[in-house]
């Protein structure tokens, strides 16, 4: 993304294409909270388009509000998040729809059908009609680039935020992009007072709602004649298929003899175009990933379609599922092998493993939420009992403590990561103090936003751009909230960590233990001297293996440490009662 535009094709992921489109489209400000599959958009902007003011926000609501503020001055803005992030940003989104904007503002919702790394698979096209905001959905990287730029133009033309809805297979798949000439915007940025537009007192909001309804009508007219809703006509085709997003690619792959109406703008839908298309074909199908969104609209219009929503509501679509939807025989395959699945686990050397080992020893129930520590739920540790959404663990523990008798209450702890705590744990902790909860909260401070790829946040001391930032002192935050018991320990000092957790639980009232130890993948040491198990001293008790460390492997009936995986975290060394584990150096 140099100053000189190079008119040549590039092989880009959907996320990279959005970043390029933002740069070429004249975006000035970008704000986001990391969330798979959206994270690389801002990372790519930071790396390749440093002219854009890009930053990580503590959460998606802040990101959208910051973006909104900038857009109110006439700046062009991009805000990105995963699908559940839109739930957090929903409050500003719904009323931004009423205020409209001055500069173009595009919100990327990166959905995750099939839940490759999410807690649900909500279909965020539904936010369009609900928030009354147009939704564009690209089917590959070229469209991701084009729709990013189009979104900015539409946003300004129609005075509305625009949602760019993507899915994992568009975000993380690479395909060819032919970029076009970047815009050259000559703008003066000012914030002009306009209370009727920006101050949503009921009287003003009512007037804006009327404007929103008119806008939706105008957008629907625009949708009727836009090229991004396109009829791929196959001569003599008896079947017409209406589809959107990456599902379009699967349909093209599997049903080359059908005509296709590919919808690029999911809201408002082009009712006339849909009706016209349906009249041209003997049978009309809808293929869409997750909810029958287009289908329900067609049913409202009274269009007769071969309806199969139950075949698409769950899980991500694949070319082979398209075969099933159309009643085509499944491809004859040899039997799949029975190799056991290999899900992701906590890395060797992960500080969370040390904490969960202690919690397991104390036979506690653990309320948690979203982060690498969610993997503490997996065997053999299996030390996570709730995980619903960001920041929830603290509130689950608090809610339970309102009802459970003391001996049960004292068996519960909440765990939360540092980034998640800043995102939405602080208010839960405030509630705990304010409403007198008797709960223990462990802040697993591994100094990064780990699960999404180790991004910075307000507690790490660095910004997205790598510049120094004030380092949010979590212990001070807890004290300022009024938590009477706040201690910071290293997860690697097992004895001290266990003792402190016991103290915190015994304490009557809110208690916080900050387990402060960096993610093993940041500042990776080049030379690691692994640990080794002395087979003569080893009694095969399995205590080391029960931590679930991937470096500890049972080979020929004995436990061995794989020197290529071992990160010398010393957890197993501390746990071994028989002194059978030591540094290979010793």
């Amino acid at each position, binding site marked *: 993304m140099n100053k000189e535009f190079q008119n040549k094709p590039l*092989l880009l992921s959907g996320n990279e294409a959005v970043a390029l489109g933002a740069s070429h489209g004249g975006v000035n400000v970008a704000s986001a909270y990391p969330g798979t599959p959206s994270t690389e958009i801002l990372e790519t902007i930071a790396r390749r388009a440093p002219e854009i003011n890009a930053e990580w926000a503590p959460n998606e609501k802040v990101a959208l509000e910051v973006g909104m503020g900038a857009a109110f001055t006439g700046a062009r803005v991009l805000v990105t998040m995963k699908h559940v992030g839109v739930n957090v940003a929903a409050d500003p989104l719904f009323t931004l729809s009423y205020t409209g904007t001055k500069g173009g503002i595009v919100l990327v919702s990166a959905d995750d059908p099939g839940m490759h790394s999410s807690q649900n698979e909500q279909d965020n096209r539904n936010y369009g009609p609900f928030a009354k905001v147009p939704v564009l959905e690209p089917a590959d990287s070229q469209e991701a680039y084009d729709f990013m730029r189009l979104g900015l133009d539409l946003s300004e033309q129609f005075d509305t935020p625009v949602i760019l809805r993507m899915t994992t*297979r568009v975000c*993380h798949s690479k395909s060819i992009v032919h970029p076009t000439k970047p815009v050259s915007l000559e703008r003066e940025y000012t914030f002009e007072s306009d209370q009727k537009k920006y101050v949503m007192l009921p009287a003003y909001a009512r007037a804006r709602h009327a404007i929103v309804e008119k806008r939706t009508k105008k957008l629907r007219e625009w949708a009727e004649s836009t090229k991004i809703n396109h009829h791929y006509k196959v001569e003599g085709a008896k079947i017409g298929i209406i589809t959107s997003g990456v599902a379009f690619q699967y349909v093209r792959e*599997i049903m080359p003899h059908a005509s296709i109406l590919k919808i690029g703008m999911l809201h408002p839908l082009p009712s006339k175009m849909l009706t016209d298309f349906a009249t041209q074909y003997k049978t009309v199908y809808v293929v869409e990933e997750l909810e029958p969104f287009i289908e329900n609209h067609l049913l409202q219009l009274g269009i007769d379609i071969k309806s199969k929503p139950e075949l698409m509501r769950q899980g991500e679509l694949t*070319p082979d599922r398209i075969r099933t939807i159309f009643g085509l025989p499944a491809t004859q395959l040899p039997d*799949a092998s029975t190799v056991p699945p290999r*899900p*992701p686990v906590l*890395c060797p050397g992960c500080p969370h493993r040390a904490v969960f080992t202690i919690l397991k020893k104390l036979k506690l129930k653990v309320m948690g939420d979203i982060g690498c520590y969610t993997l503490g739920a997996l065997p053999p540790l299996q030390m996570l009992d709730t995980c619903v959404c960001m920041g929830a663990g603290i509130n689950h523990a608090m809610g339970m403590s309102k009802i459970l008798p003391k001996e049960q209450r004292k068996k519960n702890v909440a765990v939360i990561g540092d980034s998640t705590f800043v995102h939405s744990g602080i208010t839960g902790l405030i509630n705990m103090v304010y409403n007198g909860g008797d709960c223990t909260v462990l802040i697993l401070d591994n100094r990064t936003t780990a699960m999404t790829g180790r991004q910075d946040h307000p507690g790490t001391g660095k910004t997205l751009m790598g510049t120094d930032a004030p380092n949010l002192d979590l212990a001070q935050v807890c004290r300022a909230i009024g938590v009477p018991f706040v201690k910071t320990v290293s997860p690697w000092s097992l004895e001290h960590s266990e003792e402190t957790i016991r103290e915190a639980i015994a304490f009557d009232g809110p208690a916080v233990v900050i387990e402060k130890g960096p993610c093993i993948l940041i500042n990776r040491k080049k030379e690691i001297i692994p640990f080794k198990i002395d087979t003569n001293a080893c009694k095969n008790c399995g205590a080391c293996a029960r931590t679930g460390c991937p470096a500890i492997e049972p080979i020929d009936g004995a436990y061995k440490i794989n020197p290529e995986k071992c990160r010398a975290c010393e957890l197993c060394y501390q746990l071994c009662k028989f002194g059978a584990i030591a540094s290979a150096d010793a």
Partner: protein
Amino acid sequence: MLDAPVKNVLCVGIGGQGVLTVSEVLAQAAFESGYDVKKSEIHGMSQRGGSVTSAIRFGGKVHAPLIPEGEVDVLIGFDPNETERNRHLLRPGGVVIEPTADMVKACLNLPRTLNIAVLGKASNSLPMRDEAWDKAIEICVPPHTIGINRQAFRTGREEL
């Protein structure tokens, strides 16, 4: 070129084996050769010891970024379990390329290039020319490792 049938390559392995680097180079080589290319993968599992798969499809025109079952032409497997897990997706007559003892030996002096050597071997089942592979390696690997990666690639490509 516009008529070229679509060729499907599936790269599988576990974290740390360089599966995604191989997939990058392969996709780039196809792109440099003028094919339409689509590549898909899931991010985030390799760091945490999970299975890693990446699909590369190239030809005159590619639609789906995912390979339909039973249409994998070349399965490049870096881990025996992952290779087994995906074997049933091969087209009849599809080939499986895995690291060999000779490759491992040849790469001892070329640290962390075994994955590229395996790709070199796989390249014999693919239509891209030397120049495209060379360019792709140059673009996709850390600059100070271009030399050893090209060497490793040649070792695999020339292995009988």
